[in-house]
């Protein structure tokens, strides 16, 4: 574990990403303390330019809502939705991928055909439709993002299982008489964990992008202020108040970037053999 940590800490990008993400998480957690009033409340003069007013350092929007509050509460939505949907998607993907990869044959064929069908519909289009049809709220958004993001996990896990299944230590586990479930959970899955973790971290980033796209299109939860919604609302004022669109976009960019950096760091730290290649 410490070797893993050392390798991770050696990656400057990953450490920086971790720092930024922690900042975002802290803001998300303490948003109600930082901004006790709802981000939907009109609190000041409309269209205050950011960095010009001490009371509203991030300015106000066309209805006089505090952009700073929006950014803080938006962090909550992004983190909450992306984490939950990733967990759900990983559980679905691991389940389907593990069954397909371990049993192979007809089961594999069927499950992979289903996965393929899910991949045939463009992810974002499908998410938009699912949310619109089940009326936009936080649950439908989480479900929609999970439904469109599990197929790559299933394929990855299936591939890992297929290759691990042929490895001698898995054959040895069969030979000494372990039952399939014990082989799956005790032997194969732990050895497939590294790529799953890396993929999951990247999925959190993609989920944030998808969520922001949904709320940009007006398909966000109407009770929750989100970054995508802020950009969508500010869009009509792009000429007059560009910073109103730019600030929430920067928040998305930084958060997604930090998660991607962490993902890369995890990848390097979990697969050290990829780094040192060469003969003896």
């Amino acid at each position: 574990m410490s070797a893993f940590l050392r390798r991770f800490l050696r990656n400057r990008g990953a450490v920086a990403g971790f720092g930024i993400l922690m900042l975002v998480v802290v803001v998300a957690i303490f948003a109600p303390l930082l901004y006790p009033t709802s981000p939907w409340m009109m609190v000041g003069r409309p269209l205050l330019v950011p960095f010009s007013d001490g009371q509203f350092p991030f300015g106000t929007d066309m209805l006089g809502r505090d952009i700073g509050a929006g950014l803080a509460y938006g962090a909550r939505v992004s983190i909450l939705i992306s984490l939950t949907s990733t967990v759900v998607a990983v559980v679905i993907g691991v389940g389907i991928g593990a069954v397909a990869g371990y049993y192979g044959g007809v089961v594999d064929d069927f499950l992979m055909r289903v996965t393929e069908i899910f991949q045939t519909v463009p992810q974002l289009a499908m998410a938009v439709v699912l949310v619109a049809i089940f009326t936009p709220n936080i649950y439908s958004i989480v479900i929609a993002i999970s439904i469109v993001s599990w197929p790559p996990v299933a394929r990855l896990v299936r591939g890992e299982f297929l290759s691990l299944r042929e490895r001698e230590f898995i054959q040895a586990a069969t030979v000494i008489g372990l039952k399939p479930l014990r082989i799956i959970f005790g032997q194969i899955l732990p050895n497939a964990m590294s790529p799953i973790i890396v993929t999951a971290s990247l999925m959190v980033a993609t989920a944030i992008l998808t969520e922001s796209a949904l709320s940009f299109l007006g398909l966000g939860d109407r009770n929750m202020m989100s970054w995508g919604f802020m950009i969508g609302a500010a869009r009509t004022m792009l000429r007059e108040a560009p910073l109103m669109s730019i600030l929430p976009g920067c928040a998305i960019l930084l958060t997604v970037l930090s998660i991607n950096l962490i993902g890369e760091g995890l990848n390097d730290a979990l697969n050290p053999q990829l780094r040192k290649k060469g003969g003896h």
Partner: protein
Amino acid sequence: MTFLRHAVLRLIKALTVILSVVIANFFLIRLAPGDPAAIMAGEAGASDPEYVDRLREQFGLNEPLLTQLWLYLKGVVQFDWGYSYRMQVDVLHLIAERIPATLLLMGAAFIFSILLGILFGVLAASARHRPGRGWLDSVIVGISLLLYATPLFWLSLLAILLFSVQLGWLPAYGMETPGTDYAGLERAKDIALHLVLPTISLGSFYMAMYVRLARASVLEVIGMDYIKTARAKGVPWARVLRRHVLRNAMLPVITFSGIQLGQMAGGAVLTETVFGWPGIGRLMFDALLQRDYMLLLGVFLVTSTMVVVFNILTDIIYSFVDPRIGAGGQK
């Protein structure tokens, strides 16, 4: 003969996938809360029960669900994809009208992303391999990481802000300048100008993806034994890269592009909305908001067919590039 056999099998598989997508969407849409006929009537501004009943009759909504599905599928095969009650037009007609714009946008964005992606990916990988050039790798990787984290719709807004609002170089809305009747080359030029910003906005994210993929793939191939063989023959590095690394490194990129091209259709929904591009993505979004379900089903049918066709095309291209798979190999 095996080629023909596989072609037929592949076609059957493709049709199954499309059919499954259509059926799934058909039921998905019926899961939506609300009675479609009542919604239609509401949209038309009338709500007396008699009118609703008439609508129900007209659209076959009083039949059992499976019968409706059967009728719909039968219609699809006979090029009768239903009627958009909102637009008061035949669905197929509407889609046919909109699809060239989307194909143009996706084609441009695809070429933009894959060409630049491969170029920068290969450049980064080979720079990494050369002493003193590592900075170039870092710069390319850094930029692609940034693009990879940028929301597509936000990038579109930034592009509009910079190139249309501030600099005034490029049009920000639509596919053609309204009120003009350009023809021929003039018109092509006008469309091309309108195409620039949507293409860059839609293509950037995917370009970043191709940079990462091409770079990783090149780095992997560089580590292969046959690269050492080539160097042992005395082939200079630049030529090793061109002759031995590139072709082999492109194999995973080709596979990936098949999947990615389909995903671009999703991104097109956003791009078309922001830039007012009159394509199928915006059509879908409008149909969705207006609960124009026949139209929505039609759009799904078209996009999934597009994805399946792209996949088949990449399979065929792949078989030409990799002699182990077929067409290029010895018979």
